[in-house]
């Protein structure tokens, strides 16, 4: 009967393969899966049906900052941009020594304003709030700085894999939503489970934006930077927290408030939205946490929000 326990997931599973994936596909994922065994891998499942436990991602390191956590350890949070969007990642005390050393070096470079192209192999992480919102992020296992040529290669590989997934996704639409149906439609084995649950969860989706991402990524890989470049429409609005430039700061503060209100609007499923969720979402949209906390209090005091119970916020109807 020893096989009994082994199959219940108490043995270490085989190493999970790494998916080449664009930030847009990963960040739009809101579906996850975790087996019951101690060593069962956990997955983020994307709209295209990729069951992602590990990724190979690359891009411009845009931010990397240390945050002190409540238990006194250091957590480095960063974001990395590719042509399709941004990956959020964190490096904590749990990371390997080499990953932590690299992180310290990268922080210095970012502080000095040096451009850094990074490639990382990372585990996908997800967390679900009580409201059902899914938060995804990455935990790099290993990473290295790369040059533009290696970045271009990563882009081509990622485009090719994404195109392949888009084809499987499109093929799967005309298949019966069963394992047998997928096999009959020649969907490869490694995509079947993901596509079945993705279709069920995401319903009808548009994949045109991925095509646009790929077109731009291929332009870059071919060195056609003119084609990949876009003018900006208007100066980026400021959300400056330290109020050094009067008008801009006021605009920024209103933007924080608007953002907070819209977050609560979106996430409230009847009981309100908890403090931490509001703040995490606001910070993730690029606002300063202290400022967000301040504005949340203000909104509460001025009567835009109320707290039906402590720490839970609702919009006053």
């Amino acid at each position, binding site marked *: 009967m020893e096989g009994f326990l082994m199959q219940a997931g108490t043995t270490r599973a085989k190493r999970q393969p790494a998916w080449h994936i664009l930030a847009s596909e990963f960040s739009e994922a809101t579906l996850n899966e975790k087996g019951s065994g101690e060593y069962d891998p956990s997955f983020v499942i994307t709209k295209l049906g990729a069951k992602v436990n590990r990724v190979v991602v690359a891009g411009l390191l845009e*931010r990397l900052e240390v945050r002190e956590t409540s238990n006194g350890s250091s957590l480095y949070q960063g974001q990395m941009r590719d042509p399709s969007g941004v990956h959020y990642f964190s490096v904590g005390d749990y990371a390997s020594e080499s990953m932590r050393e690299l992180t310290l070096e990268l922080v210095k470079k970012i502080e000095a304003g040096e451009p850094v*192209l990074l490639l990382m192999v990372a585990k996908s992480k997800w967390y679900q709030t009580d409201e059902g919102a899914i938060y995804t992020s990455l935990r790099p296992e290993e990473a290295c700085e790369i040059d533009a040529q290696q970045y271009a290669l990563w882009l081509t590989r990622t485009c090719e894999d994404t195109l392949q997934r888009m084809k499987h996704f499109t093929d799967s639409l005309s298949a019966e939503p069963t394992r047998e149906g997928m096999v009959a439609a020649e969907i490869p084995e490694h995509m079947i489970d993901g596509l079945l649950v993705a279709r069920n969860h995401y319903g009808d989706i548009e994949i045109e934006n991925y095509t646009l991402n790929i077109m731009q990524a291929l332009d870059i890989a071919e060195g056609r930077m003119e084609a990949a470049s876009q003018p900006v429409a208007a100066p*980026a609005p400021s959300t400056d927290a330290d109020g050094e430039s009067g008008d801009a700061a006021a605009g920024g503060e209103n933007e924080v408030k608007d953002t907070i209100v819209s977050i609560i609007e979106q996430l409230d499923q009847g009981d309100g939205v908890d403090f931490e969720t509001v703040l995490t979402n606001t910070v993730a949209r690029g606002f300063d946490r202290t400022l967000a906390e301040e504005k949340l209090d203000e909104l509460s005091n001025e009567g835009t929000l109320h707290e039906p119970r402590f720490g839970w916020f609702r919009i006053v109807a």
Partner: protein
Amino acid sequence: MACRLSCSYPWRSRECTVSTNPHESPQPVLRTGPERTRLAEVIAMSEKYETHVKSILAECPDADPEAVSAAFAKYETEFFIPPQDAMRSILRRFKGETTPTPSSGSSGSSGASGGSSAPKPTRKVSRLSELKGDDREIEIEVEIISHNIRNQTIRGEEKQIAFGLLEDNPWEENGEKTRWEFKDWGPNSNITPGSVVRIEGASVNEYQGKMSLNINQSTRIAVIREGTRPIVAPGEPQDISTLPSDGYVCIVGRILATRPDQIHRKDGSGSIEVIRGRLADETGTIGFLSWEPLAHEVGTLLKIEGAQVRTFRDTPELNFGRTTKVEVYHDKNFADVEALSEQTMVTLSELRDGAKDVDAIVQITEWAKRTFTKDGEERFLWSGQIADPTGRCRMSAWNELPITEDQLPLTVRLKGVRVRAWQGIPDITVDDADQVEILDAPPWDSELDLKNHTVEVALHELSTGASRVGISTSALVVSVREDSGFILRCTECRRVLREGVCADHGPNDGNSDVRLRLAIDNGLSSVSVLTNKEATLSLLGMTESELQGAIDDVGQVAFVQSLRGKMLGRKMNASGRSIVDEQGAMLLADGASMIEEDAGLRATEIRAQWRVS
């Protein structure tokens, strides 16, 4: 205000995606050649980035426009980052490090719709007794006890419905268990008797005080353990190639081989007479062991009900016992012995540990007589290397074969030989000289030098197949382990010492060795790679003392980080032998090299292949 626990999550939800502007159709731009002068380039740059520079200046009025423009140019030319993507980094740099990065006006991702699309919350229970009659959307892990399908007419439509019994508390071997009936309106094809499944989103049905579980089409079934309990299959015969690795089955097959054998009881209390042999149908062959007398001759077609499949090493075998029903079967169209026998012919890449009655055509490339002493008696064993176009392995014979070294390489047909694995690699054992027939010429291209032949194997095939020798594969490096470099091996068993200690032989000085510990991956499969000293040094382009110097200079961690800079995310080819077991596949590489690729070329190919323009 009271203190709020304020730990920050690294998580992020999709509704807060800060995305770039959707890609607008790029305006056609004349491609300019490298002949442009440096000056023209600078002017073109500042014009080109005009709107981007203005955006930055709006935020940082004191910044030097030329410096900002130069920064955009640097991101674009040196790092392939288009200006709209470099905006935030450049803004950050000119603003200084203390200010938080604001989101640009382009926030609001495409198609974000809040948390409302999150999965319906299911209520997780571990026991059926926790459920009430009106519970919906529940999640529970159960073992399927029985599973039947019946046709039912629903609203004039013929539909299949599955029903049966399930049992909670599936993991506790002798724990208290509750059984309920269930109905599966899907019906889900992955519900099979004996399996343990997680049912997500089922509802409870209470009828006249009796509780049952309703599984609907939207219910998700995750199989956690495939059915392993012996289930007596109904009388429908199965194909040999689709037999499970465990359980009771019914098959129809022709006897290819049969011979009496004895099994000696371990306690020395005597022996049992058994019959061993092999059965075949058109899909494959399988060995059998009958504990009951079986008088049927080679060529007889049999229907066998209630045979038990047991898997020894990697090879399944049928067991016939007291309850097994064996009867002669009549089917004029069933293939004859000769046709069926061809299926026992395998290539070396198909060898599985524990296989018997194997036929193969191989080339013997090395052959020698070895002497050893057992129980004070001198004995002989003949062994050497064999190969076919799919791979290489060792072969041993307990009797002298009519082979001399000057005849090598020599092609032979092997009949009814056994396979045993040594260090994970399947080897062939020949028990009798008459199992070997010498052929005049190989059935493949005789120019092929099999002795040094390396077979290119796709990574997925390598990771799911048997252990093999003489293979090479290509994939991307996804891990360079921190213990890559110099290691100490136990002087007794060559195992790697952990802090100067061998798990078996205790502390010892060890012998120095060099290796890299890597993982390679193609998005489908992952294989760990250990490169030996020779392969490591040739891959790094260093001598052993240069390597030692490089590590001494920067330290182990920085050395490994430098390897990642050269290898991570890049394609490599590794050759050697593979060992495949439940933990996955490992490639012991005696050769390794990085593969250079041209991104521009690949991008153009991808455009053509996928018609992305």
